[in-house]
């Protein structure tokens, strides 16, 4: 297990390294003066001079890369073009809002999806199973930002059940502000998780240990809830790990639509003001987050199911 964990994280580190290097080279590959491009037209000459020195643009590209990584390892992602504040602290300030939204979305959609999937698998080919299947497909198809806009229109603007913008103050108000964005992001996951759990549940229900449990005369309810579900849930762990990337993407839209602070809003605002250090910093942090969560999901999976350890 330790061997697997080390190899899996080495791979994750390698991927982050290649991704960050690719991003670094991409900025250099765009024609024009990199300082001009990164700082935009409104940067002061002092800032331009400082960045030129910092990036060592007069040196060969490999030295520049080394310096870039030197700064990165010290947690230095550069400075905001306008305020001069370090990018790291700006990004870390916005990150919790995005994480809060993602966690809320996963929690409600995965629990509902697992419940629906387990119910459908326990009662296969009944009317409810068919309805769940059809609704799942319909939900999977709905892109998060369209759902966000439509729910904003219906529940915030017309029915006025929930607030339209911001994050709110205090626990209850914050939760109230989370409802619509988390609904929009999570909706497509309900169907996805439900189908996944249903399929893996049906497979598990056919296995020997379930037959044994039946032979012992355990109640159907107990078999489903205690013995089948805990195994059937495994694929959901992997899917959620990989899904963090999709959730991060959906969160960008939800933050724009509901005017919430967060990584996505930060990036969009920074693109419109051509504040490249922040864009790059935020993309880097979200990429790392994604890679780490995928690796963690693989680890959890390997811990729960030893057969998965052989593949890296």
């Amino acid at each position, binding site marked *: 297990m330790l061997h697997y964990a080390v190899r899996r994280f080495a791979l994750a580190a390698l991927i982050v390294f290649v991704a960050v290097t690719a991003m670094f080279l991409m900025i250099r590959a*765009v024609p024009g003066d990199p300082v001009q491009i990164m700082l935009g037209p409104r940067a002061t000459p002092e800032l331009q001079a400082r960045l030129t020195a910092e990036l060592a643009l007069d040196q060969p590209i490999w030295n520049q890369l080394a310096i870039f990584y030197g700064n990165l390892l010290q947690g230095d992602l550069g400075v905001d073009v306008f305020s001069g504040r370090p990018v790291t602290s700006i990004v870390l300030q916005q990150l919790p809002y995005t994480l809060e939204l993602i966690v809320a979305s996963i929690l409600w959609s995965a629990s509902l999806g697992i419940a629906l999937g387990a119910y459908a698998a326990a009662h296969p080919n009944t009317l409810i199973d068919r309805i769940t299947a059809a609704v799942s*497909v*319909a939900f999977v198809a709905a892109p998060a930002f369209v759902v966000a806009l439509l729910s904003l*229109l219906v529940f915030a603007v017309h029915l006025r059940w929930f607030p339209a913008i911001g994050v709110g103050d205090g626990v209850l108000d914050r939760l109230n502000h989370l409802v619509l964005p988390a609904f929009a992001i999570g909706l497509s996951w309900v169907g996805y998780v439900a189908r996944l759990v249903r399929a893996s549940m049906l497979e598990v229900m056919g296995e020997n240990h379930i037959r044994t449990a039946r032979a012992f005369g355990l109640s159907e309810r107990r078999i489903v809830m205690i013995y089948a579900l805990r195994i059937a849930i495994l694929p959901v762990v992997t899917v959620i790990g990989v899904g*963090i990337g999709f959730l991060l993407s959906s969160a*960008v839209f939800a933050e724009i639509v509901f005017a919430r602070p967060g990584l996505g809003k930060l990036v969009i605002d*920074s693109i*419109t003001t051509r504040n490249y250090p922040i864009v790059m910093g935020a993309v880097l942090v979200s990429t790392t987050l*994604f890679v780490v969560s995928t690796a963690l999901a693989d680890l959890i999976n390997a811990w729960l199911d030893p057969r998965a350890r052989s593949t890296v």
Partner: protein
Amino acid sequence: MSKPRSELHLILTGVARDPLGLMGLIIVGTIVFCALFASWITPHDPIGMNIQDRLQGPSLTYLLGTDQLGRDTFSRVIAGGQVALKVALPAVFGAMTIGLTLGMIAGYGPKWLDNLLMLFFDTIRSFPTVMFALAVVALVGPSLQTVVLVVMATSIPTYGRVARTQTLTLRNSEFILAERSMGASMARILGVHMLPNIVGVLAVLAAMDIPTVIALEAGLSFLGLGVKPPTPSWGALLKDGYSLIRQTPWLVVGGGLPIILATLGFTFLGESLRDVVDPKLRKQR
């Protein structure tokens, strides 16, 4: 009748027999038809302004009302379908071709090349799609071509990985071994014998990928980072609708419903195709 045609015929009847598949076929057919004949269907010029009639509700003249510049929303929805397909089809086709080539090389080539290509695929996949798109748009500026390129780049790994797995499975099958023992060249083995066995699976994947691509294009245009105004795109409609959401619901509805319909149609069609072409795939997703 030649063999490929009868196979296509079989696949189409198979899809049409499945109720969801038939529904997908009808929706996709309608969208493609509207996109092809957009200029005949649109009752008004999709970018023609008529300020006196701005922000109207649905009427017989304006089926879905008008926007803040008095442009006919229905005409813009129809023309928007054209833009969506103009982005989705080249992007999906390009990604499929490149992914197929790289995937077959990874599956058939030496181990180090395989590792290198897999690392390349994993790296692209490690960027959250929208974040990657935003970074690229920030650097090179928004345009239709940028959207196509970004979308293409992000879906290459999906095709590449599937093509690689298929190649690896086929590589040791008896008919390939027989070919090789008869001295067939690598190009012949890959192009003549393996390709036809992989393309079907990838085509199914492509049909299921189109909704993602359409949603991504619409999403970028919604953020103002996709196709530029006044080009009518579903995402641009939503962008206008969002800023006017307290004045009129029709722009959000007009931009949102076609996206949902298109994703539904292509998903139904893709799933039904998959079940007909290769039922084994069902488990892998």
